């Protein structure tokens, strides 16, 4: 990614929170900087803070990777953002120069770290492929899970024996206790399902009793599936293990067949839960028409390893996690690419999109968020909330989490003419994640 392709919006999107973006904005003025230099993809400068010595900030714009001597724990800090903004908006303020000592030091230590990382990965791959150790681990896990599952089956049957009518009075610990035991039994996925159900039972929104029974039954289905897992086809086995919460080693996934394509980075959302940030990036393949989900994680304020720029194209080989409905993928290899002008092809009608969802759900009953690309829909405001309608007259309700402002933005963009929308369908509502209007692409953030 060459620097000239970065825009102000994209730089600000790297900010960890709104305060950092604002402060970074404030530092994007030459008068705040004692020195500003660059050499090829490396940029560095010294920013006068409140202390005596200025802070040293540097950026490797190829990644981008940041480093600053200020004490801030945010990543990238406001100095990094300010420096990057200066580079993008006022490039003439930087002069080419030989890197200072503290710059070459950092570059050297990064190169060293990357070499160590590669070594470590090679060692891990060796370890992972040791068949004896693998088999031993697998059998231990099998025992633990089997015991946990018996317990959960009994718990579920108890619920319907006693009746669900009183369940609305139960507290969170009613659900949390069995969830914790599932985690101990090495089936954290089952624990997550239980905690999701706690959310439904405590919030009591809409037809929650129907939703709760559906989820309970889906959990039951999962347990039954696990108990006869060997008799099931391989993709479904993989799905059941994933739902249990068994991680598949990345090396195993990477060993599978890759799909090479030009992938459009259609949406990106970051969700935070207890100091762990997860980033969901949806890709759409130009030739394959395939949707792919990249899931990345970062702890606390650490940056994500890879950057994917929303609205750009990625020339890459993707490998998909095994599943009866494969969406989650890893990037095996990525290459430089330029922008492509053609629009993406999705579904012309909502009926066609829902038909695809139905097929996916039939193959993968625990499907929660299904990517949909709708070619031509009209955003509308109904008395019940926001909707989209296609040219045949089919309608889909939009997710309740969509803010009023975002709803009006969709209407403003459409001007009464159909838009192309990409988003997630959860069986009840559609969450728009990005839009194309009059040939321009817009990402819809979480507000």
């Amino acid at each position: 990614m060459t620097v000239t392709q970065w825009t102000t919006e994209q730089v600000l999107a790297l900010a960890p929170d709104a305060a950092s973006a604002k402060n970074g904005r404030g530092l994007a003025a030459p008068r705040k900087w004692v020195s500003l230099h660059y050499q090829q993809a490396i940029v560095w400068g010294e920013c006068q803070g409140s202390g005596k010595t200025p802070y040293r900030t540097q950026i490797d714009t190829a990644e981008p990777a940041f480093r600053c001597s200020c004490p801030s724990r945010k990543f990238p800090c406001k100095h990094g953002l300010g420096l990057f903004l200066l580079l993008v908006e006022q490039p003439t303020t930087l002069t080419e120069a030989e890197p200072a000592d503290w710059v070459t030091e950092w570059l050297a230590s990064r190169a060293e770290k990357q070499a160590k990382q590669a070594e470590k990965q090679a060692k891990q791959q060796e370890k992972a492929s040791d068949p004896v150790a693998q088999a031993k681990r697998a059998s231990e896990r099998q025992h633990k899970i089997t015991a946990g599952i018996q317990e959960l089956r009994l718990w579920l049957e108890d619920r319907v024996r006693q009746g669900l009518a009183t369940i609305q009075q139960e507290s969170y610990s009613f659900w949390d206790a069995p969830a914790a035991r599932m985690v101990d039994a090495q089936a954290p996925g089952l624990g997550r399902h239980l905690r999701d159900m706690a959310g439904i039972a405590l919030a009591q929104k809409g037809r929650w009793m129907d939703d709760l029974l559906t989820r309970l039954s889906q959990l039951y289905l999962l347990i039954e599936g696990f108990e006869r897992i060997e008799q099931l086809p391989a993709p479904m086995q993989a799905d059941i293990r994933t739902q249990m919460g068994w991680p598949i080693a990345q090396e195993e996934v990477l060993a599978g067949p890759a799909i090479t394509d030009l992938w459009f980075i259609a949406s990106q959302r970051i969700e935070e839960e207890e100091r762990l940030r997860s980033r969901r990036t949806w890709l759409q393949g130009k030739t394959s028409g395939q949707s792919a989900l990249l899931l990345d994680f970062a702890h606390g304020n650490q940056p994500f390893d890879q950057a994917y720029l929303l609205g750009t194209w990625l020339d890459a080989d993707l490998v998909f996690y095994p599943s009866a409905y494969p969406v989650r993928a890893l990037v095996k290899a990525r290459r430089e690419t330029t922008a492509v002008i053609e629009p993406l092809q999705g579904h012309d009608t909502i009926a066609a999109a829902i038909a695809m969802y139905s097929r996916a759900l039939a193959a993968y009953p625990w499907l929660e968020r299904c990517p949909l690309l709708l070619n031509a829909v009209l955003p509308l405001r109904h008395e019940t909330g926001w909707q989209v309608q296609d040219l045949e007259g089919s309608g889909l309700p939009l997710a309740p989490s969509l803010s009023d402002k975002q709803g009006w933005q969709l209407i403003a963009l459409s001007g009464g003419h159909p838009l192309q929308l990409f988003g997630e369908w959860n069986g009840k509502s559609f969450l728009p994640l990005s839009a194309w209007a009059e040939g321009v692409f817009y990402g819809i953030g979480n507000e």
Partner: protein
Amino acid sequence: MASGTSSDSPWQAIVSAALVGTERQSFQLPITTGKLGQQLEQLGDRAPEAQLLAAAAIVALHQQVGQLPELQSPPALAPCPPDDRPICSPRAAHLLRRLLQGENLQVLPEWLALAAQHHQRVPPILLPALLEVGRQQPQWREAIVAVEGQRGRWLAAQNPAWSYATGIDTDLDWETASSAARLLWLEQLRQRDADQARDLLQTTWSQDAASDRTQFLATFRLGLRLADEPFLETALDDRSKEVRRVAADLLARLPDSHLCQRQIERLTSLVQMQAGSLTLTLPTDCYAEMQRDGIELKPPSGQGERAWWLQQMIAATPLAWWLRSSGLSLANLLEVAWASDWKDTLRAGWKSAIERQQNSDWAMALLNRMSDTDPDQDLLSVLSIEQRETLMGQWLQAQDSHLIQNFIWQGLILLTQQGSTWSNEFAQLVLTKVTEHLVEGKTNQYWLVQDLLKGLPLCLNPDLLPIANQQLSGLEIPYVTKAIQQFLGTLQLRHDIHQAFAAASVETTR
């Protein structure tokens, strides 16, 4: 979503059974046709709880997979007509987004004016935020409507909260549009063709609510003329007190009106000006005709009612009459007045009269007489820009940098609120004096400096940015540093906005 379930659908039966519990009521597997029926039958040899849960899983999945989207009637709204104006440049759009996110929102009117000047419109994605701002800040509505484009009008028509922005094209629109839209329309029309605006208002006057009549009549401040008098005179008898008040105030601003003539007649009997002395007699009563002409019966607390009536009469009397009747020059008249027992009443009354009649000579004269107290906002606003700058410049020059008197700061702060751009000379004088004061003096007037720095960036020509940076940028003064940084930041933003539009116009002329 359409599901077509009746009350004995398999799913409903399962949910009911699950609610009650299998130990209280034995569970019957639902019977139905087709593959679903066959699947359910096969569960028969399990324990009841297992039957229920398995059946639930099968039926739930079956329903979800078979779901079809709901068919709806087509939307009632026609698509938006095409726009004739281009959208502003991406750089300008980005700056607008920053403003709308709350950063230096007070710079918004300037952005809007520049966009209007360049015949550009706002990008559609920013319309909701902009229309929201207009909902909360009525004084910016006219500027917003000028750059919203067809898309903005179309969007506003769909949200009652934005009804002010729908625009009025035809007489039918006038009769059916919201109060907010009509008010905006009147304000614009009064500036273009005041007589037509008056005629238009009269077509619906008798049906409008009192609150609307008050607001609409108040727009006559714009383009006020003698031809408005007959209508305003009838409004003096309106059944709403607020409307009567507005009408009386407007007539008092027309020195040739009958109302002003009536005030002169009343005052003539109460004022004696002879040989260098001035005597006023308090009115004995406040008759109905006086109240009709806008004299309020009840005084503000702490003031006697007869002096209050006299003050109001003075406030509605043409200033030229005082000079004619006394035969004195303005300066001499004020000497006499200040020496008399009636100084306070005269001063208060004259202040209002000056504001109503926009008489800058009188304003200047009064300001000079009051130079050691906080300068008066209303009087300053009457002066022309040059007069204000000359006056403040004189006062400022006379100050020693170590201590700038409070009333000077107050005067400068008031000047920043007048909404006009200062001449470069005056601006540089102020910047230099302020910088000197901050650097040399040990200022203990922090809050005044902060207030000045808050309003200052909107008054300077953005070209002065380099000078401002040079003088103020490195300064670290306790309590003031942050205000300085914000001042420079705001000025920088204004500068960037001007640049963004200037660059765009260069592009289009290539």
